[in-house]
Protein backbone atom coordinates (compact mmCIF):
# COMPACT_ATOMS: atom_id res chain seq x y z
CA UNK A 1 0.00 0.00 0.00
CA UNK A 2 1.54 3.30 -0.97
CA UNK A 3 -1.30 5.78 -0.43
CA UNK A 4 -2.40 7.13 2.90
CA UNK A 5 -5.10 4.93 4.41
CA UNK A 6 -8.30 6.93 4.61
CA UNK A 7 -10.34 7.10 7.77
CA UNK A 8 -12.97 4.95 6.13
CA UNK A 9 -10.71 2.05 5.10
CA UNK A 10 -11.36 -1.22 6.89
CA UNK A 11 -9.73 -1.46 10.30
CA UNK A 12 -6.76 -3.84 10.11
CA UNK A 13 -5.81 -6.39 12.75
CA UNK A 14 -2.75 -4.28 13.44
CA UNK A 15 -4.98 -1.31 14.16
CA UNK A 16 -7.16 -3.46 16.42
CA UNK A 17 -4.07 -4.42 18.39
CA UNK A 18 -2.90 -0.80 18.54
CA UNK A 19 -6.33 0.27 19.77
CA UNK A 20 -6.45 -2.46 22.41
CA UNK A 21 -3.02 -1.51 23.74
CA UNK A 22 -3.77 2.22 23.65
CA UNK A 23 -6.79 1.63 25.84
CA UNK A 24 -4.52 0.11 28.50
CA UNK A 25 -2.24 3.16 28.41
CA UNK A 26 -4.73 5.98 28.82
CA UNK A 27 -3.85 8.36 31.62
CA UNK A 28 -0.31 7.07 32.22
CA UNK A 29 2.49 9.60 32.60
CA UNK A 30 5.44 7.86 31.01
CA UNK A 31 5.40 4.99 28.54
CA UNK A 32 8.63 3.47 27.25
CA UNK A 33 8.91 1.39 24.11
CA UNK A 34 11.68 -0.93 22.97
CA UNK A 35 13.55 -0.55 19.72
CA UNK A 36 11.72 -3.08 17.55
CA UNK A 37 8.15 -2.66 18.80
CA UNK A 38 6.15 -0.77 16.18
CA UNK A 39 2.69 -1.90 17.34
CA UNK A 40 3.16 -0.88 20.99
CA UNK A 41 5.06 2.15 19.77
CA UNK A 42 2.11 3.24 17.68
CA UNK A 43 -0.23 2.68 20.63
CA UNK A 44 2.00 4.76 22.88
CA UNK A 45 2.26 7.61 20.38
CA UNK A 46 -1.54 7.52 19.91
CA UNK A 47 -1.97 7.75 23.67
CA UNK A 48 0.34 10.74 23.79
CA UNK A 49 -1.52 12.45 20.96
CA UNK A 50 -4.76 12.08 22.90
CA UNK A 51 -3.24 13.22 26.22
CA UNK A 52 -2.63 16.87 25.40
CA UNK A 53 1.04 16.65 26.36
CA UNK A 54 0.55 14.92 29.71
CA UNK A 55 1.82 11.54 28.53
CA UNK A 56 5.53 11.17 27.85
CA UNK A 57 6.65 8.48 25.39
CA UNK A 58 10.26 7.32 25.22
CA UNK A 59 11.07 5.20 22.19
CA UNK A 60 14.46 3.49 22.20
CA UNK A 61 16.30 3.93 18.95
CA UNK A 62 14.25 6.99 18.07
CA UNK A 63 15.93 10.32 17.54
CA UNK A 64 12.77 12.40 18.03
CA UNK A 65 11.24 10.50 20.92
CA UNK A 66 14.22 9.32 22.91
CA UNK A 67 14.78 11.80 25.74
CA UNK A 68 17.70 9.99 27.35
CA UNK A 69 21.12 11.61 27.71
CA UNK A 70 22.89 9.25 30.10
CA UNK A 71 23.62 6.28 27.88
CA UNK A 72 22.17 2.83 27.51
CA UNK A 73 21.65 2.35 31.22
CA UNK A 74 19.32 5.32 31.62
CA UNK A 75 16.13 3.50 30.53
CA UNK A 76 16.77 0.83 33.15
CA UNK A 77 17.76 3.29 35.85
CA UNK A 78 14.69 5.37 35.03
CA UNK A 79 12.49 2.28 35.39
CA UNK A 80 14.24 1.40 38.65
CA UNK A 81 13.40 4.88 39.93
CA UNK A 82 9.73 4.16 39.29
CA UNK A 83 9.49 6.76 36.54
CA UNK A 84 8.21 4.42 33.81
CA UNK A 85 4.58 3.37 34.03
CA UNK A 86 4.33 0.97 31.13
CA UNK A 87 6.60 -1.11 28.94
CA UNK A 88 6.13 -3.87 26.37
CA UNK A 89 7.70 -7.29 26.18
CA UNK A 90 7.36 -10.13 23.72
CA UNK A 91 8.70 -13.65 23.75
CA UNK A 92 9.71 -16.48 21.47
CA UNK A 93 7.55 -18.44 23.91
CA UNK A 94 5.03 -17.16 26.45
CA UNK A 95 3.31 -19.55 28.83
CA UNK A 96 0.17 -19.52 30.95
CA UNK A 97 2.05 -18.18 33.97
CA UNK A 98 3.17 -15.20 31.88
CA UNK A 99 6.72 -16.51 31.94
CA UNK A 100 8.55 -15.35 28.84
CA UNK A 101 11.38 -16.97 26.92
CA UNK A 102 13.63 -14.91 24.70
CA UNK A 103 16.60 -17.30 24.80
CA UNK A 104 15.77 -20.47 22.90
CA UNK A 105 13.91 -23.71 22.39
CA UNK A 106 15.31 -26.90 23.90
CA UNK A 107 16.17 -28.42 27.26
CA UNK A 108 17.76 -25.82 29.53
CA UNK A 109 20.14 -28.60 30.62
CA UNK A 110 21.71 -28.47 27.17
CA UNK A 111 22.29 -24.74 27.43
CA UNK A 112 23.87 -22.98 25.62
CA UNK A 113 23.10 -25.37 22.77
CA UNK A 114 19.56 -24.86 21.57
CA UNK A 115 17.22 -26.41 18.99
CA UNK A 116 16.28 -22.88 18.08
CA UNK A 117 18.08 -19.88 19.46
CA UNK A 118 16.32 -16.55 19.94
CA UNK A 119 18.33 -13.31 20.23
CA UNK A 120 18.36 -13.16 24.04
CA UNK A 121 16.58 -11.74 27.05
CA UNK A 122 17.45 -8.06 26.47
CA UNK A 123 16.15 -6.04 29.43
CA UNK A 124 13.18 -8.31 30.15
CA UNK A 125 14.67 -10.05 33.20
CA UNK A 126 14.77 -6.67 34.89
CA UNK A 127 12.00 -4.50 33.45
CA UNK A 128 9.35 -7.17 34.05
CA UNK A 129 9.98 -6.65 37.78
CA UNK A 130 10.07 -2.89 38.05
CA UNK A 131 7.62 -1.49 35.48
CA UNK A 132 4.11 -1.51 37.00
CA UNK A 133 2.24 -2.23 33.78
CA UNK A 134 4.05 -4.56 31.40
CA UNK A 135 1.99 -5.42 28.34
CA UNK A 136 2.97 -8.60 26.53
CA UNK A 137 2.40 -8.66 22.82
CA UNK A 138 2.97 -11.33 20.24
CA UNK A 139 1.39 -11.21 16.81
CA UNK A 140 1.84 -14.93 16.10
CA UNK A 141 -0.78 -16.70 18.19
CA UNK A 142 -0.09 -20.43 17.84
CA UNK A 143 0.60 -23.35 20.17
CA UNK A 144 4.26 -22.87 19.19
CA UNK A 145 4.42 -19.36 20.68
CA UNK A 146 1.82 -19.57 23.46
CA UNK A 147 3.11 -22.70 25.15
CA UNK A 148 2.18 -24.66 28.22
CA UNK A 149 5.57 -24.05 29.80
CA UNK A 150 8.47 -22.05 28.43
CA UNK A 151 11.74 -23.92 27.84
CA UNK A 152 13.79 -21.09 29.34
CA UNK A 153 12.55 -18.43 31.72
CA UNK A 154 14.02 -15.12 30.62
CA UNK A 155 11.70 -13.44 33.11
CA UNK A 156 9.09 -15.02 35.34
CA UNK A 157 5.47 -13.86 35.28
CA UNK A 158 5.13 -13.84 39.05
CA UNK A 159 7.41 -13.98 42.09
CA UNK A 160 7.21 -15.11 45.71
CA UNK A 161 6.05 -12.38 48.11
CA UNK A 162 9.52 -11.70 49.54
CA UNK A 163 10.85 -10.69 46.12
CA UNK A 164 10.86 -6.94 45.43
CA UNK A 165 8.49 -6.61 42.53
CA UNK A 166 6.49 -3.43 41.99
CA UNK A 167 6.02 -4.46 38.35
CA UNK A 168 4.76 -7.31 36.25
CA UNK A 169 2.44 -8.49 33.48
CA UNK A 170 -0.81 -6.67 32.90
CA UNK A 171 -2.15 -8.22 29.68
CA UNK A 172 -1.20 -10.15 26.57
CA UNK A 173 -2.22 -8.88 23.15
CA UNK A 174 -1.99 -11.14 20.10
CA UNK A 175 -3.34 -11.05 16.56
CA UNK A 176 -6.38 -13.01 17.78
CA UNK A 177 -7.31 -11.63 21.18
CA UNK A 178 -6.59 -9.83 24.43
CA UNK A 179 -5.82 -11.74 27.64
CA UNK A 180 -5.75 -10.00 31.00
CA UNK A 181 -3.43 -11.38 33.69
CA UNK A 182 -4.18 -11.86 37.38
CA UNK A 183 -0.90 -11.67 39.30
CA UNK A 184 -2.30 -13.23 42.44
CA UNK A 185 -3.65 -16.25 40.61
CA UNK A 186 -0.79 -16.29 38.07
CA UNK A 187 -3.30 -16.92 35.34
CA UNK A 188 -4.62 -15.35 32.13
CA UNK A 189 -8.28 -14.63 31.36
CA UNK A 190 -9.51 -14.21 27.81
CA UNK A 191 -10.70 -10.61 27.84
CA UNK A 192 -11.84 -10.12 24.27
CA UNK A 193 -11.50 -11.57 20.79
CA UNK A 194 -10.69 -9.48 17.74
CA UNK A 195 -13.38 -9.06 15.05
CA UNK A 196 -13.90 -12.29 13.13
CA UNK A 197 -12.17 -14.45 15.76
CA UNK A 198 -14.08 -16.94 17.93
CA UNK A 199 -13.29 -17.94 21.49
CA UNK A 200 -12.95 -21.51 20.24
CA UNK A 201 -10.34 -20.47 17.70
CA UNK A 202 -8.33 -18.83 20.48
CA UNK A 203 -8.59 -21.97 22.61
CA UNK A 204 -7.37 -24.11 19.71
CA UNK A 205 -4.40 -21.82 19.04
CA UNK A 206 -3.27 -21.62 22.66
CA UNK A 207 -1.27 -24.39 24.33
CA UNK A 208 -1.70 -22.99 27.85
CA UNK A 209 -4.85 -23.10 29.94
CA UNK A 210 -6.66 -19.88 30.81
CA UNK A 211 -10.01 -18.65 32.12
CA UNK A 212 -12.82 -17.40 29.91
CA UNK A 213 -16.42 -16.47 30.52
CA UNK A 214 -19.14 -18.05 28.44
CA UNK A 215 -19.60 -14.87 26.46
CA UNK A 216 -16.34 -13.27 25.37
CA UNK A 217 -16.80 -9.73 24.06
CA UNK A 218 -15.22 -8.40 20.91
CA UNK A 219 -12.10 -6.23 21.22
CA UNK A 220 -13.34 -2.67 20.83
CA UNK A 221 -12.23 -0.80 17.73
CA UNK A 222 -10.82 2.69 17.93
CA UNK A 223 -13.54 5.27 17.50
CA UNK A 224 -13.53 7.29 14.28
CA UNK A 225 -11.63 10.14 15.88
CA UNK A 226 -8.95 7.86 17.30
CA UNK A 227 -8.60 6.05 14.00
CA UNK A 228 -8.27 9.30 12.08
CA UNK A 229 -5.63 10.51 14.50
CA UNK A 230 -3.72 7.23 14.24
CA UNK A 231 -3.75 7.31 10.46
CA UNK A 232 -2.61 10.92 10.18
CA UNK A 233 -0.58 12.63 12.92
CA UNK A 234 0.45 9.47 14.73
CA UNK A 235 1.34 7.59 11.54
CA UNK A 236 3.81 10.35 10.70
CA UNK A 237 5.32 10.18 14.18
CA UNK A 238 5.56 6.40 13.91
CA UNK A 239 7.33 6.75 10.58
CA UNK A 240 10.22 8.55 12.25
CA UNK A 241 11.19 5.41 14.18
CA UNK A 242 9.55 2.61 12.20
CA UNK A 243 9.59 3.80 8.57
CA UNK A 244 8.91 0.39 6.98
CA UNK A 245 6.04 -0.29 9.33
CA UNK A 246 4.41 3.09 8.78
CA UNK A 247 4.73 2.78 5.01
CA UNK A 248 3.29 -0.71 5.00
CA UNK A 249 0.28 0.13 7.15
CA UNK A 250 -0.53 3.70 6.39
CA UNK A 251 1.46 4.55 3.31
CA UNK A 252 3.29 7.41 4.98
Amino acid at each position, binding site marked *: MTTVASATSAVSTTEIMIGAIAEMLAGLSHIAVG*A*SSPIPGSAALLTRARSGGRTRVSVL*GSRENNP*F*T*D*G*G*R*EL*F*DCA*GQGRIDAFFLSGGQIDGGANIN*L*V*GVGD*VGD*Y*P*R*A*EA*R*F*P*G*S*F*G*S*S*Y*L*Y*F*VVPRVILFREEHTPRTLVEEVD*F*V*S*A*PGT*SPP*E*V*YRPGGPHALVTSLCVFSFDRNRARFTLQSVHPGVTAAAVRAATAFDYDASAEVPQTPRLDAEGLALLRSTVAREVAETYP*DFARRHWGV
Partner: protein
Amino acid sequence: MPAQTTEILDLETLASRIPNGARIALPPDYSGCAMAAVRALMRRPVRDLHIIAVPAGGMQVDMLIGAGSVARVEAAAVTMGENGLAPRFTAALKSGEIEMWDATCPAIQAGLQAAEKGIPFMPLRGIIGSDLLRVRPDWKVIDNPLAEDGRRDPIVILPAITPDVTLFHALKADRYGNVWIGVRRELMLMAHASRQALVTVEQIEDVNFLEDPVLAAGTIPGLYITAIAEAKNGAWPIELSGAYPADRTAQADYVKAARTADGFAQWAAEVVHDRVPA
Protein backbone atom coordinates in the same frame (compact mmCIF):
# COMPACT_ATOMS: atom_id res chain seq x y z
CA MET B 1 50.08 21.93 28.58
CA PRO B 2 47.83 18.86 28.69
CA ALA B 3 49.53 15.49 28.97
CA GLN B 4 49.86 13.56 25.74
CA THR B 5 49.43 9.94 26.70
CA THR B 6 47.05 8.72 23.98
CA GLU B 7 48.82 7.17 21.02
CA ILE B 8 47.81 8.13 17.48
CA LEU B 9 48.06 5.04 15.28
CA ASP B 10 46.98 3.80 11.88
CA LEU B 11 44.02 1.45 11.69
CA GLU B 12 45.93 -1.82 11.27
CA THR B 13 48.31 -1.02 14.12
CA LEU B 14 45.41 -0.10 16.36
CA ALA B 15 43.73 -3.43 15.59
CA SER B 16 46.98 -5.27 16.24
CA ARG B 17 46.88 -4.03 19.84
CA ILE B 18 44.02 -6.42 20.62
CA PRO B 19 45.63 -9.73 21.62
CA ASN B 20 44.14 -13.16 21.11
CA GLY B 21 42.02 -14.14 24.07
CA ALA B 22 41.17 -10.55 24.99
CA ARG B 23 37.99 -9.74 26.87
CA ILE B 24 36.70 -7.08 24.53
CA ALA B 25 33.75 -4.76 25.09
CA LEU B 26 31.80 -3.77 21.97
CA PRO B 27 28.99 -1.20 21.72
CA PRO B 28 25.51 -1.83 20.31
CA ASP B 29 24.72 -1.09 16.66
CA TYR B 30 23.30 2.35 17.42
CA SER B 31 26.33 3.60 19.29
CA GLY B 32 29.36 3.64 17.01
CA CYS B 33 30.75 0.29 15.89
CA ALA B 34 34.39 0.19 14.77
CA MET B 35 33.54 -1.94 11.74
CA ALA B 36 36.73 -1.09 9.83
CA ALA B 37 38.77 -2.20 12.85
CA VAL B 38 36.66 -5.36 13.17
CA ARG B 39 37.44 -6.21 9.55
CA ALA B 40 41.13 -5.67 10.34
CA LEU B 41 40.77 -8.12 13.23
CA MET B 42 39.14 -10.65 10.90
CA ARG B 43 41.95 -10.35 8.37
CA ARG B 44 44.51 -11.21 11.02
CA PRO B 45 42.49 -13.21 12.24
CA VAL B 46 42.28 -12.56 15.95
CA ARG B 47 41.41 -15.68 18.01
CA ASP B 48 39.56 -16.66 21.18
CA LEU B 49 37.93 -13.35 21.95
CA HIS B 50 35.61 -13.09 24.91
CA ILE B 51 33.13 -10.52 23.60
CA ILE B 52 31.21 -8.41 26.07
CA ALA B 53 28.31 -6.88 24.15
CA VAL B 54 27.19 -3.66 25.83
CA PRO B 55 24.55 -4.80 26.21
CA ALA B 56 23.51 -6.48 22.93
CA GLY B 57 25.49 -7.51 19.90
CA GLY B 58 24.78 -7.11 16.21
CA MET B 59 26.63 -7.38 12.95
CA GLN B 60 30.15 -7.00 14.37
CA VAL B 61 29.63 -9.85 16.84
CA ASP B 62 28.14 -12.06 14.15
CA MET B 63 31.02 -11.34 11.77
CA LEU B 64 33.66 -12.13 14.37
CA ILE B 65 31.91 -15.41 15.19
CA GLY B 66 31.80 -16.25 11.49
CA ALA B 67 35.53 -15.57 11.22
CA GLY B 68 36.23 -18.06 14.01
CA SER B 69 37.58 -15.31 16.23
CA VAL B 70 35.27 -15.84 19.18
CA ALA B 71 35.47 -18.22 22.12
CA ARG B 72 32.74 -16.69 24.23
CA VAL B 73 29.93 -14.14 24.01
CA GLU B 74 28.57 -12.32 27.04
CA ALA B 75 25.43 -10.47 25.93
CA ALA B 76 21.83 -9.61 26.69
CA ALA B 77 21.09 -10.53 23.07
CA VAL B 78 22.65 -10.90 19.65
CA THR B 79 20.44 -9.85 16.77
CA MET B 80 20.50 -8.27 13.35
CA GLY B 81 17.53 -6.11 14.40
CA GLU B 82 15.09 -5.56 11.53
CA ASN B 83 17.13 -8.01 9.47
CA GLY B 84 16.22 -10.83 11.85
CA LEU B 85 18.35 -13.39 13.64
CA ALA B 86 22.14 -13.11 13.63
CA PRO B 87 23.03 -16.04 11.36
CA ARG B 88 26.56 -17.03 12.48
CA PHE B 89 25.66 -16.54 16.15
CA THR B 90 22.58 -18.75 15.77
CA ALA B 91 24.55 -21.42 13.93
CA ALA B 92 27.37 -21.35 16.47
CA LEU B 93 24.95 -21.93 19.32
CA LYS B 94 23.33 -24.81 17.46
CA SER B 95 26.69 -26.45 16.87
CA GLY B 96 28.01 -25.57 20.29
CA GLU B 97 31.22 -24.04 19.00
CA ILE B 98 31.06 -20.93 21.21
CA GLU B 99 30.40 -20.47 24.86
CA MET B 100 27.46 -18.23 25.73
CA TRP B 101 27.02 -16.12 28.83
CA ASP B 102 23.43 -14.93 28.54
CA ALA B 103 22.72 -11.73 30.47
CA THR B 104 20.16 -8.97 30.66
CA CYS B 105 20.92 -5.40 29.56
CA PRO B 106 21.09 -3.70 32.97
CA ALA B 107 23.22 -6.53 34.38
CA ILE B 108 25.97 -5.81 31.87
CA GLN B 109 25.71 -2.10 32.54
CA ALA B 110 25.77 -2.70 36.31
CA GLY B 111 28.83 -4.96 35.98
CA LEU B 112 30.64 -2.25 34.04
CA GLN B 113 29.58 0.36 36.57
CA ALA B 114 31.06 -1.80 39.31
CA ALA B 115 34.37 -1.85 37.42
CA GLU B 116 34.06 1.90 36.84
CA LYS B 117 33.75 2.42 40.59
CA GLY B 118 36.41 -0.11 41.55
CA ILE B 119 33.91 -2.17 43.54
CA PRO B 120 33.79 -5.96 43.30
CA PHE B 121 30.05 -6.30 42.77
CA MET B 122 26.84 -4.43 42.18
CA PRO B 123 23.34 -5.37 43.32
CA LEU B 124 20.46 -5.33 40.84
CA ARG B 125 16.72 -5.76 41.23
CA GLY B 126 14.80 -8.30 39.16
CA ILE B 127 16.31 -11.47 37.65
CA ILE B 128 15.23 -13.71 40.56
CA GLY B 129 13.28 -16.64 39.12
CA SER B 130 14.92 -16.25 35.72
CA ASP B 131 16.88 -19.17 34.28
CA LEU B 132 19.69 -16.68 33.76
CA LEU B 133 20.62 -17.46 37.36
CA ARG B 134 20.94 -21.14 36.41
CA VAL B 135 23.27 -20.48 33.51
CA ARG B 136 25.24 -17.70 35.22
CA PRO B 137 26.89 -19.28 38.25
CA ASP B 138 28.91 -16.10 38.66
CA TRP B 139 25.71 -14.28 39.64
CA LYS B 140 24.51 -14.78 43.17
CA VAL B 141 21.40 -14.10 45.25
CA ILE B 142 21.99 -12.71 48.74
CA ASP B 143 19.72 -11.29 51.39
CA ASN B 144 19.89 -7.51 51.39
CA PRO B 145 22.01 -6.84 54.48
CA LEU B 146 20.25 -3.51 55.06
CA ALA B 147 16.70 -4.86 54.95
CA GLU B 148 14.55 -3.53 57.76
CA ASP B 149 13.40 -5.51 60.76
CA GLY B 150 15.01 -8.76 59.70
CA ARG B 151 12.64 -8.88 56.72
CA ARG B 152 13.92 -11.16 53.96
CA ASP B 153 14.80 -9.25 50.82
CA PRO B 154 16.64 -11.42 48.30
CA ILE B 155 18.63 -9.49 45.70
CA VAL B 156 20.99 -10.45 42.91
CA ILE B 157 24.60 -9.34 43.03
CA LEU B 158 26.71 -9.27 39.90
CA PRO B 159 30.51 -9.31 39.68
CA ALA B 160 32.33 -6.31 38.21
CA ILE B 161 33.00 -6.58 34.47
CA THR B 162 36.47 -5.25 33.65
CA PRO B 163 37.14 -5.68 29.93
CA ASP B 164 40.73 -5.87 28.79
CA VAL B 165 39.86 -3.53 25.98
CA THR B 166 36.99 -1.47 24.63
CA LEU B 167 36.76 -0.91 20.88
CA PHE B 168 34.42 1.60 19.23
CA HIS B 169 34.10 4.21 16.52
CA ALA B 170 33.17 7.86 17.00
CA LEU B 171 32.75 11.01 14.98
CA LYS B 172 35.86 12.79 16.14
CA ALA B 173 38.79 12.93 18.51
CA ASP B 174 41.25 15.71 19.20
CA ARG B 175 45.02 15.37 19.21
CA TYR B 176 45.08 14.86 22.98
CA GLY B 177 43.00 11.71 22.62
CA ASN B 178 39.78 13.29 23.87
CA VAL B 179 36.89 11.60 22.04
CA TRP B 180 33.54 13.31 21.46
CA ILE B 181 30.63 10.90 21.88
CA GLY B 182 27.66 13.21 22.55
CA VAL B 183 24.84 11.43 24.38
CA ARG B 184 26.34 7.97 23.81
CA ARG B 185 27.47 7.69 27.42
CA GLU B 186 27.65 3.88 27.33
CA LEU B 187 30.90 4.45 25.44
CA MET B 188 32.21 6.49 28.35
CA LEU B 189 31.17 3.79 30.80
CA MET B 190 32.97 1.19 28.69
CA ALA B 191 36.13 3.31 28.53
CA HIS B 192 36.08 3.96 32.27
CA ALA B 193 35.58 0.27 33.06
CA SER B 194 38.16 -1.14 30.65
CA ARG B 195 41.88 -1.46 31.09
CA GLN B 196 42.41 -0.07 27.60
CA ALA B 197 40.23 1.78 25.11
CA LEU B 198 40.98 1.73 21.38
CA VAL B 199 38.95 4.14 19.30
CA THR B 200 38.62 4.81 15.60
CA VAL B 201 37.21 8.15 14.47
CA GLU B 202 36.16 9.85 11.27
CA GLN B 203 38.72 12.55 11.98
CA ILE B 204 41.30 13.77 14.45
CA GLU B 205 41.13 17.52 15.02
CA ASP B 206 44.01 19.74 16.09
CA VAL B 207 42.16 21.33 19.01
CA ASN B 208 41.35 20.49 22.64
CA PHE B 209 37.69 19.54 23.10
CA LEU B 210 37.96 20.00 26.86
CA GLU B 211 38.54 23.74 26.38
CA ASP B 212 35.03 24.12 24.93
CA PRO B 213 32.48 23.68 27.73
CA VAL B 214 29.74 22.60 25.32
CA LEU B 215 31.85 19.97 23.58
CA ALA B 216 33.45 18.87 26.86
CA ALA B 217 30.05 17.73 28.14
CA GLY B 218 30.02 14.97 25.51
CA THR B 219 33.70 14.06 25.61
CA ILE B 220 35.64 11.10 27.02
CA PRO B 221 38.94 12.53 28.30
CA GLY B 222 42.11 11.19 26.71
CA LEU B 223 43.02 9.93 30.16
CA TYR B 224 40.92 6.85 29.40
CA ILE B 225 41.85 6.45 25.73
CA THR B 226 44.86 4.25 24.97
CA ALA B 227 45.04 4.92 21.24
CA ILE B 228 43.08 6.46 18.40
CA ALA B 229 43.18 5.94 14.65
CA GLU B 230 41.44 7.69 11.79
CA ALA B 231 39.07 5.50 9.79
CA LYS B 232 36.84 7.27 7.28
CA ASN B 233 33.44 5.57 7.14
CA GLY B 234 34.78 3.50 9.98
CA ALA B 235 31.32 2.34 11.08
CA TRP B 236 30.15 1.27 7.60
CA PRO B 237 27.78 -0.48 7.02
CA ILE B 238 26.44 0.49 10.47
CA GLU B 239 25.10 3.99 10.95
CA LEU B 240 27.14 6.68 12.64
CA SER B 241 24.90 9.24 14.27
CA GLY B 242 25.56 12.68 12.89
CA ALA B 243 27.54 11.35 9.93
CA TYR B 244 25.87 8.65 7.83
CA PRO B 245 22.93 6.25 7.96
CA ALA B 246 23.14 2.48 7.94
CA ASP B 247 23.81 0.87 4.57
CA ARG B 248 20.78 -1.37 4.74
CA THR B 249 21.55 -3.11 1.47
CA ALA B 250 24.98 -4.14 2.67
CA GLN B 251 23.49 -5.37 5.93
CA ALA B 252 20.78 -7.37 4.16
CA ASP B 253 23.39 -8.81 1.80
CA TYR B 254 25.39 -9.93 4.79
CA VAL B 255 22.47 -11.62 6.52
CA LYS B 256 21.58 -13.43 3.32
CA ALA B 257 25.14 -14.58 2.62
CA ALA B 258 25.90 -15.56 6.21
CA ARG B 259 23.06 -18.05 6.44
CA THR B 260 25.64 -20.73 5.62
CA ALA B 261 29.30 -21.05 6.52
CA ASP B 262 30.20 -21.13 2.82
CA GLY B 263 28.13 -18.06 2.13
CA PHE B 264 29.84 -16.28 4.97
CA ALA B 265 33.29 -17.26 3.70
CA GLN B 266 32.48 -15.94 0.25
CA TRP B 267 31.13 -12.72 1.70
CA ALA B 268 34.22 -12.30 3.86
CA ALA B 269 36.55 -12.94 0.92
CA GLU B 270 34.88 -10.13 -0.93
CA VAL B 271 34.04 -7.58 1.75
CA VAL B 272 36.62 -8.14 4.47
CA HIS B 273 39.73 -9.23 2.62
CA ASP B 274 39.47 -7.24 -0.59
CA ARG B 275 36.90 -4.50 -0.81
CA VAL B 276 37.91 -2.42 2.19
CA PRO B 277 36.16 0.92 1.90
CA ALA B 278 38.75 3.67 2.20
